[in-house]
């Protein structure tokens, strides 16, 4: 602690912080560029100049950069000082010498940190008389536009991209006033977190290309608090829309999860919402097999007879749909006829994962906590591809060693460059066992490659090495492997905050049991030990908690004739079971009713009846993320009728089926879930209820400068429309309502504060301290409780496959089915290929590029072969999700 004085006011502050962070936390308007709460200080831009006085007698003082100045006890500082203010305004004048002043055509306009700082410093008169230098821009791929002339050389882009995300293909090039931030040549940015450049860049050099394609200003967007639906981590987003079109995804700060950064799948994967081929009308398949639109009243009658004639109805839920949508379906078909919609292996792995989470629910790491862990063991997950945001957090955890070395030399943690310079290549240890080389290998100690069962064996062995009472796998490890296991165990044991990561993406429950054992062995010795488990989809954990029955039970019911009608909620059957089985079931079923927002293969080929459900952008709902946190997302815009939320369709169907539930809005539905399924107690607190008001006001989805409201629909009707009233949440569909720092975090549709228009800077005003937590608490509630009987080690059973095995290869761009429908993501999808190691290729008598026809689980695909030396012997890497391959059923034994 230290007591310092700023502009005559005394504060007790954290003496390990720098003055800029403290001043911003205290609400001062102190301009800055190169500093960022996550990237810390380097003192490059010289924008945050303040006066520092040596002592009470010192009247002259000296100019210092606040970001490079420690808050030492007794410090006296002036922000208001004239000379400091002069320096700050001069810095802007310098920065603006070459800036093109092209604000009218710049995508950053209205949310530009440079605009804000220019106004804040009072620079209004340009004195420079020379010409401006210009640059050539680069094509950086489908995500990011590049306009280098706008660059003010704050170095933030490379500090995020290179120093934070470990990306290697964006650098500062050139020197003096000809520095250039780009790649060595045109080409898509390679790092999975490139989209954050859009928000990290304080001006319009790096902008969102997908927004640029249908651009409008920040202030003209209608937003809502969103939860990313493209993996299980539940990063908070702020989707923006206008006139029923989804425009972009922006980061929404969550102090425990994503904080300032999203992955590119999350940011650029929402384009599926705007696709022309989405079902927008109720559809019925005619005799020719064509889906035909039906008017609502006609459809109602149709559905009434479908249900009246049905001999048994089964429901297929979905791990990518909300609890509410799933629960409504469950209500429609009855609890016993409901399946969780997961493939059998995925469901088994998810159940195993749930058990492990419940056993260690007090020790689950948040994404943020991962960054504090100083030794990590990853079992099986290629996190960059399956839960990408974790990879970014792990990259920070690797740097804990730097901070440790810095601390030993009295270098403060915010002194970014000095921390890097002393840390050099010394990283905190990360061990990782995966089936093949991963993008994290650059920070992994001796990457370990093995088949899923051997990865589980490794995990059991580590548990056993940590605690001799933990069962080891039956087969003893060879000497090298045992030495590696001992090294891992010793490292984890010696760490201050060790972390175990595992997940369901390999579909092997024994990996999760092994992770659970390792965790148990670790936590007895160290209560700081943490566990992090990833799932395949946004609500996999929620569905695992809701229902044990997997999709196969639904097929079985059709196959054995107990049911003849299949109702599917936002799911694609072909992703969950072998094609032959799906086709047979569909053939046998009388009706297949699908509620979905996308033209999935199930909608296109299997559905007899289609009801157009809202996507995440057109619905409210609750998702349970991988750490058991219930989080609410809200409708960004109201879709054109008759599109509506999945749960509303299910409610309508229940009505025609004769058991209409009495849910008036989300509050009722959520209350019903909690009453029916105690495991979900707490989800009602994920966000304030629909009736919550502040000073009698709702919370706006649009900023107060929203323009053109009277004109937006003038082509339809020149009278101003009354804003729609939201029956399901405390948000309004307008700019009216409570705008202020007391907005409950879960209801913050966007971040905006007086004088601070950019997302990453404005949020400061809503945080307890800059970069910390949201005032009023980070949204969401963790609902997992400690399970009974959590004290025993699991059996170390593994299921070795003797011969050939297919293992899934996940891809951040392509393996997740919703984002895979987004144009920008499609451009970045890898080519379909089977991967094998050279020995395997040899024994198959194939070389790279040859086509391999492979029957997996009764389904045959022919893809070219690629050689990947990292794969184990007799193992075929199979691309997941794309090209008609269902990876969620792997690994399986195969015979090539």
């Amino acid at each position, binding site marked *: 602690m230290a007591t310092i004085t700023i502009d005559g006011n005394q504060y007790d502050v954290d003496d390990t912080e720098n003055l800029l962070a403290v001043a911003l936390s205290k609400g001062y308007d102190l301009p800055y560029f190169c500093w960022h709460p996550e990237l810390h200080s380097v003192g490059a831009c010289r924008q945050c100049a303040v006066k520092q006085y040596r002592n009470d007698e010192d009247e002259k003082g000296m100019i210092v950069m606040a970001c490079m100045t420690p808050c030492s006890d007794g410090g006296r500082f002036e922000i208001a000082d004239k000379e400091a203010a002069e320096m700050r305004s001069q810095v802007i004048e310098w920065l603006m010498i070459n800036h093109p002043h092209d604000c009218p055509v710049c995508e950053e306009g209205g949310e530009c940190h440079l605009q804000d700082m220019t106004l804040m410093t009072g620079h209004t008169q340009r004195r420079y008389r020379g010409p401006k230098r210009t640059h050539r821009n680069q094509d950086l791929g489908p995500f990011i536009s590049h306009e280098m002339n706008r660059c003010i050389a704050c170095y933030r882009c490379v500090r995020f991209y290179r120093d934070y995300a470990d990306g290697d293909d964006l650098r500062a090039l050139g020197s003096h006033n000809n520095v250039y931030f780009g790649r*060595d040549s045109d080409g898509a940015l390679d790092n999975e977190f490139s989209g954050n450049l859009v928000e990290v860049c304080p001006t319009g050099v790096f902008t969102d290309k997908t927004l640029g394609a249908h651009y409008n200003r920040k202030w003209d967007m209608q937003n809502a608090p969103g939860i990313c639906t493209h993996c299980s981590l539940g990063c908070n987003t702020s989707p923006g829309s206008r006139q029923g079109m989804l425009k972009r995804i922006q980061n929404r700060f969550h102090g425990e999860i994503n904080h300032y950064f999203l992955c590119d799948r999350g940011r650029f994967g929402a384009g599926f919402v705007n696709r022309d081929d989405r079902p927008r009308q109720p559809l019925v398949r005619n005799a020719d097999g064509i889906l035909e639109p039906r008017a609502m009243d006609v459809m109602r009658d149709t559905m009434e007879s479908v249900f009246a004639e049905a001999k048994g109805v089964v429901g297929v839920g979905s791990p990518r749909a909300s609890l509410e949508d799933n629960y409504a379906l469950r209500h429609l078909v009855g609890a016993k006829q409901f399946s969780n919609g997961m493939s059998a292996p995925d469901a088994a792995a998810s159940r195993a994962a749930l058990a492990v989470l419940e056993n260690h629910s007090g020790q689950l790491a948040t994404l943020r906590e991962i960054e504090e862990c100083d030794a990590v063991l990853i079992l099986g997950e290629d996190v960059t591809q399956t839960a990408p945001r974790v990879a970014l957090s792990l990259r920070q955890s690797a740097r804990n060693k730097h901070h440790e070395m810095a601390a030993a030399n009295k270098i403060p943690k915010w002194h970014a460059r000095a921390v890097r310079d002393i840390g050099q290549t010394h990283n905190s240890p990360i061990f990782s066992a995966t089936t093949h080389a991963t993008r994290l290998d650059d920070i992994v100690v001796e990457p370990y490659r093995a088949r899923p069962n051997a990865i589980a064996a490794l995990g059991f062995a580590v548990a056993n090495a940590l605690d001799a009472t933990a069962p080891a796998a039956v087969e003893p490890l060879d000497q090298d492997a045992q030495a590696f296991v001992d090294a891992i165990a010793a490292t984890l044991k010696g760490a201050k905050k060790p972390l175990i990561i595992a997940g369901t993406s390999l579909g092997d429950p024994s990996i999760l049991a092994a992770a659970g054992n390792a965790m148990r062995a670790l936590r007895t010795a160290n209560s700081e030990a943490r566990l992090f488990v990833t799932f395949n989809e946004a609500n996999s954990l929620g569905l695992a908690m809701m229902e044990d029955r997997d999709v196969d039970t639904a097929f079985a019911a059709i196959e054995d004739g107990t049911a003849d009608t299949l109702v599917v909620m936002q799911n694609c059957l072909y992703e969950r079971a072998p094609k032959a089985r799906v086709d047979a079931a569909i053939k046998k079923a009388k009706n297949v009713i699908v509620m979905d927002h996308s033209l999935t293969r199930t909608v296109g080929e299997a559905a007899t009846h289609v009801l157009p459900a809202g996507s995440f952008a057109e619905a409210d709902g609750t998702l349970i993320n991988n750490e058991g946190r219930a989080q609410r997302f809200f409708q960004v815009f109201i879709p054109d009728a008759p599109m509506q939320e999945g749960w509303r369709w299910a409610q309508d169907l229940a009505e025609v089926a004769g058991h209409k539930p009495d849910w008036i809005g989300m509050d009722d539905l959520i209350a019903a879930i909690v009453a029916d399924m105690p495991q979900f107690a707490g989800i009602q607190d994920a966000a304030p209820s629909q009736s919550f008001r502040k000073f009698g006001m709702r919370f706006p989805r649009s900023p107060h400068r929203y323009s053109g409201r009277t004109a937006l629909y003038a082509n339809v009707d020149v009278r101003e429309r009354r804003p729609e009233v939201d029956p399901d949440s405390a948000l309004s569909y307008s700019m009216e309502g409570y705008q202020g720092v007391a907005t409950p975090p879960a209801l913050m549709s966007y971040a905006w504060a007086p004088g601070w228009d950019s997302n990453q800077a404005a949020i400061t005003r809503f945080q307890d301290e800059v970069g910390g937590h949201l005032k009023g608490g980070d949204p969401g509630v963790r609902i997992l409780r400690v399970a009974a009987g959590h004290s025993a080690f699991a059996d170390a059973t593994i299921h070795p496959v003797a011969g050939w095995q297919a293992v899934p290869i996940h891809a951040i761009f392509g393996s997740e089915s919703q984002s895979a429908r987004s144009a920008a993501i499609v451009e970045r999808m890898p080519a379909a290929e089977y991967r094998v190691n050279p020995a395997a290729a040899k024994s198959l008598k194939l070389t790279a590029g040859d086509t391999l026809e492979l029957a997996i689980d009764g389904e045959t695909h022919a893809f070219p072969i690629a050689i990947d030396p990292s794969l184990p012997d007799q193992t075929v890497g199979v691309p997941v999700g794309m090209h008609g391959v269902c990876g969620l059923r792997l690994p399986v034994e195969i015979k090539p």
Partner: protein
Amino acid sequence: MQLSEAEIEGIQHEMSLYEDPGAATIEALKIVQEHRGWVSDEALAAAAAVVNVTPTQMEAVATFYNLIFRQPVGRHVIMLCDSISCYLVGYEQVRDHLKSTLGIDFGQTTADGRFTLLPICCLGDCDKGPAMRVGEVYHDQLTPERVDAILDEYK
């Protein structure tokens, strides 16, 4: 593209002189340039591979420094000191003479590929200015007449 044995050996030797072999990026660029006169995109990528850094990192270093040529240069690179001591004793005259004789501006190469003309900061030859280097050879106390004679030495 492949670097020559000699280049690779040279780079590997430099790499052995540093605690972090990646520190040899600058030396690698210089070695490649010594062998090829300049550093092409392909040569840069090849050198990057030897040092085990990405081409973009190599480029970040290459574009920072003055003495790395990322464009083809003539057989002889003339670097004329434009700093204060030479400026005081007739740099401008020599500069103008060089430009008109060679028919090129700074940064350009003569059509016959013989000379590239570049300005350079203080060569440490201040007591004998105006000074220039042609390749690795210093020439000082330049006058337009001496420049003509010197240029004749380089074919």
